[in-house]
């Protein structure tokens, strides 16, 4: 075991997978000479060469489309979109091509590819370096969408994503990159895609979250336990699609109360689907209405510190909502 932050865990895992399998190639903007704006691919160019570490032109649709071609012809491309906010020009490739290649060819073709994208706010990224895109792609069958929140999960899920025969959108919350540290095994391991994880056990209510919001929930839960004696179970969704309903429902049935916390705009966010699932499948086990906490329905967060804070959830606001629900 070695203690690492999230970005180092991703760097090391990607490095090890490239060293282990020469079909793995990486491509994206600024990833070769510069080593990536977040340094995820630092040193890769020198070690693996320009046939496997490819600085692309500034063209997101092209990056994804070229990765599709590589995946169709025997490679395992890991494409980087510099910021999740910039993936929108590639929406056509993602929806019309990536998600449907297997389906439209009746299983003849598959796309073993990974698209990595740093997402989320809390880093003064303003409107175009802070977005949440998980719901947009969670809505598209054929693409798996993962949102690991810890160094352990990021490492294990990235390895699983590279080995997955289907396309995986691998979302890395950029605020967690250097903030969150944890132990990561030194030997290769996988964390299965499609499995949520109970990150903290509790009795009084279940908080369901992912990404940075997971850590806000864990902090709030610890505080409530210490200060109010309220016991909160925290479920880390980890995979947006396909969603692990079982782990979520098992926890909610146990505690009888559910708070879904997500950073994205509240309306039609991924948390809305989770809340609907709970309402549909666990109604008679609930002791309170399903509660949702999402970002305000404005286009995005502002650059000014107080505007960003007004958009983002924090441990105080999360604890407040947990307490409200506990007392319901």
């Amino acid at each position, binding site marked *: 075991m070695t203690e690492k932050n999230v970005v180092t865990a991703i760097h090391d895992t990607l490095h090890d997978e490239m060293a282990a399998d020469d079909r793995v*190639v990486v491509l994206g903007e600024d990833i070769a000479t510069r080593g990536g704006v977040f340094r995820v691919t630092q040193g890769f160019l020198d070690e693996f060469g320009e*046939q*496997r570490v490819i600085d*692309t*032109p500034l*063209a997101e*649709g*092209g990056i*994804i*489309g*070229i*990765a*599709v*071609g*590589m*995946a*169709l*012809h*025997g*490679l395992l*491309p890991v494409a980087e979109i510099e910021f999740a906010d910039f993936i929108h*020009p590639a929406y*056509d*490739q993602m929806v*019309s*091509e990536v998600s*449907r*290649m*297997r*389906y*439209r*060819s*009746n*299983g*003849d*073709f*598959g796309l073993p590819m990974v698209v990595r994208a740093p997402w989320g706010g809390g880093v003064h990224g303003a409107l175009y370096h802070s977005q949440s895109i998980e719901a947009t792609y969670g809505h598209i*069958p*054929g693409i*798996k969408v993962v949102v690991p929140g810890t160094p352990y999960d990021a490492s294990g899920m990235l390895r699983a994503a590279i080995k*997955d*025969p*289907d396309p995986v959108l691998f979302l890395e919350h950029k605020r967690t990159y250097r903030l969150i540290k944890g132990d990561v095994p030194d030997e290769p391991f996988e964390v299965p895609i499609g499995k949520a994880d109970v990150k903290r056990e509790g009795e009084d209510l279940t908080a369901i979250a992912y990404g940075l919001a997971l850590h806000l929930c864990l902090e709030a839960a610890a505080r409530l336990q210490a200060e109010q004696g309220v016991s909160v179970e925290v479920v880390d969704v980890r995979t947006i699609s396909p969603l692990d309903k079982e782990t979520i429902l098992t926890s909610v049935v146990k505690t009888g109360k559910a708070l879904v916390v997500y950073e994205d705009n509240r309306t039609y966010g991924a948390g809305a689907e989770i809340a609907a699932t709970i309402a549909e499948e666990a109604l008679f086990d609930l002791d309170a209405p399903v509660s949702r906490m999402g970002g305000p329905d404005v286009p995005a967060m502002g650059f000014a510190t107080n505007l960003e804070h007004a958009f983002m959830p924090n441990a105080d606001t999360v604890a407040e909502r947990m307490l409200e629900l506990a007392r319901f």
Partner: protein
Amino acid sequence: MYRTMVTARLIDEASFRLNRQGKAPFVVPVSGHEGCQVGTGWPLRPGQDMWVPYYRDVAIVLIAGMTPYEIFLGLFAKAEDPSSGGRQMPSHWGSRRLGIISHSSPIATQVPHAAGIAWAARYRGEDTVVGCWFGEGATSEGAWHEGMNFAGIHKLPVVFVCENNRYAISVAQPLQMAVQNVADRAPGYGFPGVVVDGNDVLACYAAMKTAVERARAGDGPTLIEAKTYRYFPHTSDDDDRSYRTREEVEEAKQKDPIAVFAETLKDRGILDPASIDALWTETKANVDGQIDQAWNAADPEPSSLRRHVYFEGDA
């Protein structure tokens, strides 16, 4: 080559007949494009090189190895349709076995795929060349630019073929681009652009052969623009009378690539009128003979709707 052109034409005629009979709800015609397709498809090696076509490329997929029977399976949306098992509209080709890359309906999305395949082929040390076909309408899309640009930067083994029939459905070329030739854009990507008469199958063949040799030698892509015309509407659901005069269509038909090639074959003493007639009769019997079998093939099971969203294990 001539037989493949005739086969494509006869598949078209049969498909429209079946459309009028109510058996084929949707047809994408090829007629008029047979010369540029056969000419540019012929220099590639079936089973070794890769084919990245678009929906009008009946003759391209015939060269790659798809049979008329398989094309009719697609037309009737049958379970054994090799392209999609009846999921996609007809003429949305694909077959991993034949190296024909599955494509969608949005235009030009396959161009970056061709570049990516070419990268992978070179990385794997193959001598594969990728052929990528599209209409001139595709050249307005961002994906076209992005794929062309990447292929040019890295001198990838790919040949881009524009089948310029002068209309993107109804929008005529002068409203699509300010330049005279699509090929004029190629220098902007750092590789040659060549204009050929798309009604002259041998000229298309010669241009493609040069381009394929260039690509295989590691000298990078070529953009071939074949000037052609489509004799039918964009699809069976289009009415081209709203944007093309009948005189223009009739004039274009005077340069029918099949008739032009027949004259050449006769002039050079390769075929005589009798053997040409016999070839048509034989090919028509062959094509039409495959329709009933395809029509009688099984439809997809409704329960198959939910299959192949994700990997289901090796077949």
